[in-house]
C-alpha cells in the first residue's frame, strides 16, 4: 500500500504498524515525533497503530532552543 511520508509517496506492506514502519526506515526513537493525518501519535501507541493506505505521515524533529 502507498503512504505519503514527508510529502513523498512511500510503499509499504499492508497491515504494518507505525512502530514497524519506523523501524524499517531506521529512524532514531528519541528526538522525533510522528504526525499522522495532522495528529501527533503518542510514542506509547506506535506499536498498536495500524497504518492505512493513503495515510499522510510527517516525521517531526523536536526543536528545543530559545
Amino acid at each position, binding site marked *: 500500500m502507498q503512504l505519503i511520508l514527508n510529502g513523498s509517496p512511500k510503499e509499504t506492506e499492508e497491515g504494518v504498524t507505525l512502530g514497524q514502519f519506523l523501524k524499517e526506515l531506521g529512524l*532514531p*526513537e*528519541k*528526538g522525533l*515525533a510522528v*504526525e499522522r493525518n*495532522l*495528529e*501527533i501519535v*503518542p*510514542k*506509547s*501507541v506506535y506499536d498498536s497503530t495500524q497504518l492505512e493506505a493513503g495515510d499522510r505521515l510527517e516525521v*517531526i*524533529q*523536536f*526543536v*528545543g*532552543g*530559545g
Partner: protein
Amino acid sequence: MNLSPEQIQRYARHIMLKEIGGPGQQKLLGAKVAMIGAGGLGGPAALYLAAAGVGSIRLIDDDDVSLSNLQRQILFSSEEVGLSKVQCGEKRLTSLNPDCKVSAVNHRFAPENAAECIGDADFILDGSDSFQTRFDVNQFCHENNRTLISGAVGRWTGQVSVFKSGRPKNEDAQDKLPCYRCLTPQLPETEVSCAEIGVIGPLTGIIGARMAMETVKEITNAGQSMAGRLWIYDALSGDSRNIKLPVDPACPCCSSN
C-alpha cells in the same frame, strides 16, 4: 479598577476590539506572567506583553548579554554586552510601559527554586534553551495547575503550543488536555540549543510574538486556545500548520497509570 485617561489612550487599539474591550484590557493589567528565559523568544514575547499592558512580568534568566545574542535578541543593545539580561530587560520593559511591573529574577530555573522563580504567576512562558529545563517547567506547571505557553526554535523551524495538562478539553468532555511530555516523552539524545545548531534571527521574533499572542488569548479568553494543538512553522518553505496533540496514555508526567 477603572482605566485612567492615559490608559484609555495607550490601549485604544485593544479596547476597540470586541474580543478585548475594556474588560479584556483590565484582565491584561491584572495578569501575572513569568518568562523562563529572557533570550531570543523571551525578549520579543516580553516586549509585546509589556506593551499590551500585562500588569506583572517575572523575567527569569541567569545569563549576561553576549555579543552573539544580538543577532536575534532584540530586548538588548550593544552597550549592554556583559550586563545581566534580566536587569537590562527590566529597564527596557519598564520604560516601554510603566503599567507593567517587572521583576528581574537572576536565577536559572530548576526544580529546587521553581516556586521562588515563578511566584504567583498564572501564565508561564517557556522560551528556555534546554530540554531538561523544558521538562522541569512542564512538571511544575502540571503539578501547580499553571498554564504553560511553550515556544521553541532551532535552525529554521519553530513550534508553539499551550499546555493545560490534566484539565478537560471542554466543559463536558472526559478527555483531558496533554502536557509537554505527551509530545516529548524522553530527553533527545543530544541537546539542541541555538548555540549548538544555530538559529535564523527573525524566526525567534515570529515564535516569541506568537507566544505573546497565545498568552494574550489565554488571559482574555479571546478566540480558540492552542491547548491540545501544536503549531509548526518552517521558515525555509514558508509553510506552517496546526497539528492535533492528544494525551499520551503512558506519559511520564501527566498519565495517572
